[in-house]
């Protein structure tokens, strides 16, 4: 175990590391041209940084980041979009699920600098308290959460799952691979297995998704 002192030191190092990252709002075109496909050679003892710009919830964001920054940390710590949650930070829980280019991914297991030009949708982009996405409304209606920590990831995942079924992507429980997958409870549950809920709100989550999918549970 590190002593409290060691903790202090590593926290300070961490702060030094983040000073180099600045969020600048700018037009995408201009940034795409400047965007380095290579990080800056770091000064002695300093972490390497790189520029990247991608759109988040429809708004272009340009950042200069420590190359180690995950998409999750870029969203939360640099863009202050804290709706996306950090659970395990290792791809094991799904709390960090966001939609990139129409596909759900674990934002903790991808580097921000690898997303030049991408378009990212987070829970904040799906809907607002005043104008909720139908999936957000359904989670409220069906009590699809208890503590709510896994919920943003569940909702982003659920929205993408319905698109995946529409696109005909099969799953582990799809019976016949040569025909389009059906919208069954078993299909929804299998497809949502990458989102763990510590509170065990699963049955209500499945009901919420089923309602949006337009089928009785």
């Amino acid at each position, binding site marked *: 175990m590190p002593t409290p002192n060691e903790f202090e030191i590593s926290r300070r190092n961490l702060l030094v590391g983040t000073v180099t990252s600045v969020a600048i709002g700018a037009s995408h075109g201009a940034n795409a041209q400047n965007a380095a496909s290579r990080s800056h050679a770091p000064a002695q003892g300093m972490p390497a940084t790189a520029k990247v710009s991608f759109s988040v919830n429809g708004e272009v964001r340009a950042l200069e980041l420590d190359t180690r920054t995950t998409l999750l940390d870029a969203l939360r710590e640099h863009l202050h979009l804290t709706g996306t949650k950090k659970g395990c930070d290792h791809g094991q829980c799904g709390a960090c699920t966001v939609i990139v280019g129409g596909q759900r991914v674990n934002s903790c297991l991808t580097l921000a600098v690898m997303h030049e030009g991408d378009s990212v949708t987070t829970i904040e982009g799906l809907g607002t308290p005043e104008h909720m996405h139908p999936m957000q409304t359904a989670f409220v209606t069906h009590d699809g959460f208890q503590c709510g920590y896994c919920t943003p990831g569940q909702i982003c995942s659920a929205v993408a799952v319905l698109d995946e079924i529409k696109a005909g992507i099969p799953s582990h429980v799809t019976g016949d691979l040569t025909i389009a997958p059906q919208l069954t409870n078993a299909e929804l549950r299998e497809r949502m297995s990458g*989102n763990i809920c510590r509170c065990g709100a699963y049955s209500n989550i499945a009901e919420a998704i089923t309602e949006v999918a337009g089928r009785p549970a």
Partner: protein
Amino acid sequence: MKSFTYEKANSPAAAAAAAAGSSNARFIAGGTNLLDLMKLEIETPSHLIDVNGLAFDKIEPTQEGGLRIGALVRNTALAADERIRRDYGLLSRALLSGASGQLRNKATTAGNLLQRTRCPYFYDTNQPCNKRTPGSGCAAIGGVTRQHAVLGSSESCIATHPSDMAIAMRALDATVETVRPDGTTRAIPIADLHRLPGETPHIETTLSAGELITSVTLPKPVGGTHIYRKVRDRASYAFALVSVGAIVQRDGTGRVAVGGVAHKPWRVEAAEAEMPRGAKAVATRLLDGARPTRDNSFKLALVERTLAAVLSEAKG
């Protein structure tokens, strides 16, 4: 995580050359295995070469009547491809049994083949591990070994290869195509890609430094019933304890590869010859020379029973 410099490769040869030019560089594709290990400082590259910009994202017919799968084709896209679902159902099934929807959207064909073991001692940097730190010893031997290998293990390492997709690729006789830093290309039969641990468990494949996988090809379809059966601790989103990938023809002949038992996909031709005689006969040959531990000897019975389930499912 250790600091690293980053570049996006714009040609395969440039990527391979960049990797060879830096003593501690790694390619990054989906990042779902590499970043996990970098966070734990099990992997500590000083330079990352992002290969996602390379044009290896297609599945195309080969002249031989098979398919060429680009190294960057995502696991979701591969599993959902109509030709794969129709003619290589085993591959779709194996892919869909692995990880989660989110992870499969990122994970690539090459990255999946090259993912590293899930041995818990490999993941715990406080433990000795010959794979992580050559020569430090193996904490698994004499430890908790429920997940570990029963075949092909050594005094240095008893880890398994965790990929489901690789089991299907092995049964389908896939070939891995690569480019080396000097620009030369080669084709490696999947059987020769992964190595047994021997005394050098840190050397996991026969790829050389900087060698880049460009595609994986499948020979022309062989027909038959395709089944992938994975036995695990929960119904989804878990690695296999044991898995069986099989192609069974009407006359009962076929192919079978087994996962969760060794440092590489396990396939024994003499065992396949026993398929018409049933699971026990196949298992006896397949598990010949097995060296289970007290914790994982259940895998021997589990392989036989999973085989029996697969063969009976194939009969319909």
